[in-house]
């Protein structure tokens, strides 16, 4: 049975944790022989993979062929507007190129042009970090009378806090994260095996779409007065919506 912290050691090894968690994992490794051995093995394996595998370079003939392909490719007329550019891109990509072009097109669409609000990225990163690190909660309490006043001293907002354990959403604590250049309040719930982070911060004028899925996590946004809320989790939409309804019922 591997140590429960082995995933965190791996994340630390891959440079995927913040400084605070890194220090915590280092302390853990001083005590845990198993994680020490894991860390050393990960290092040995990386050295072996990077040094022992044969270096692979593009064959010169392939590189030359690709350069010829590029030169033979007609250059598209320079578009005047972004809309037209995307339109032409779709026509060009889909006509006569079949499934591969469609797959590649999807990749472009997913990766490049339709970037939603940056706050979505911030929220997913904050959620994942909270799961990776020990920084899930700053104040651990199942009592809303402890969590709510605690926020008053730490953040600029005062979100609704309640425990819904009978309904399956157990309040486990609160945390402060930095979001959209503000100190956002995060109320943390546990639902079965899942953690749900409910972020809240002073709403900006920009409107956000209600439901977003990113990297497999669901983000449900709503607004109450001048507060912007977002619940983030890897639970299903229904479970997430049920909690937001409970919260909205209190407002």
């Amino acid at each position, binding site marked *: 049975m591997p140590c429960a912290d082995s995933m965190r050691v791996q994340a630390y090894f*891959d440079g*995927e944790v913040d400084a605070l968690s890194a220090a915590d994992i280092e302390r853990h490794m001083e005590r845990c022989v198993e994680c020490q051995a894991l860390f050393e093995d990960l290092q040995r394996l990386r050295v072996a993979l990077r040094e022992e595998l044969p270096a*692979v370079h593009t064959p010169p003939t*392939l590189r030359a062929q690709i350069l010829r392909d*590029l030169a033979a*490719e007609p250059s598209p007329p320079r578009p005047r507007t972004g809309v037209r550019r995307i339109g032409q891109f779709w026509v060009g990509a889909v006509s006569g190129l079949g499934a*591969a072009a469609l797959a590649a097109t999807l990749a472009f669409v997913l990766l490049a*042009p339709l970037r939603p609000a940056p706050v979505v990225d911030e929220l997913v990163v904050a959620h994942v970090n909270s799961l990776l690190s020990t920084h899930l909660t700053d104040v651990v309490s199942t009592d809303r009378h402890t969590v709510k006043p605690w926020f008053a001293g730490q953040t600029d907002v005062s979100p609704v806090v309640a425990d819904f354990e009978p309904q399956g959403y157990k309040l486990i604590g609160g945390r402060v994260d930095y979001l959209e250049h503000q100190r956002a309040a995060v109320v943390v719930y546990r639902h079965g095996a899942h953690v749900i982070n409910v972020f809240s911060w002073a709403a900006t004028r920009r409107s956000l779409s209600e439901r977003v899925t990113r990297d497999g996590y669901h983000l449900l946004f709503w607004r109450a007065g001048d507060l912007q809320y977002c619940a983030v989790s890897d639970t299903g939409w229904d479970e997430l919506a049920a909690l937001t309804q409970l919260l909205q019922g209190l407002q």
Partner: protein
Amino acid sequence: MDDRRRRFEALVLPHLDASYRFARWLARSPDDAQDLVQEAMLRAYRGFDALRGSDVKAWLLTIVRNCHATALTQQRRRAHVPLPEEHDALDGQALVSSELGPQEESIRHDQTLTLERLIECLPEDYREVLILREIEDMDYRAIAEITQVPLGTVMSRLARARQALRKQWFTQVEAEPSAVR
């Protein structure tokens, strides 16, 4: 040369080696890998205008992987499915540096083949995540984008791939102490 092509060659071509390396782990043979990369670069060039300031290497590797998936689907659709070609690890690439003595060279060579074989034996889902992390030095987020799975899945696949190699490769290397440097 027009401006578009110049920008493509400056931004995208530096990742050609990475694409070819990745393709070599995805495709069944060096020939297939070459076809795959040739196709992917052309697709990338045609869609280049849609690329906006995101990670170019991740974008390109996503295209390579998508082209590979398409090629696989097409192969499976054909009635005749060819058997995987016997992998020839010596296909024209020098494996060892010339400074090594013959004995060291053969040991190093054996070790290399073993590690390579072990990676080939990993399930594809695990192998690609391992290669992207360890060889291409991509972070979890980029790997999640390229392989289109959640971050948590990237982490668990990576842990399993590493666990399999730790077990098998270290056991083999330790059984031949002379091979440990």
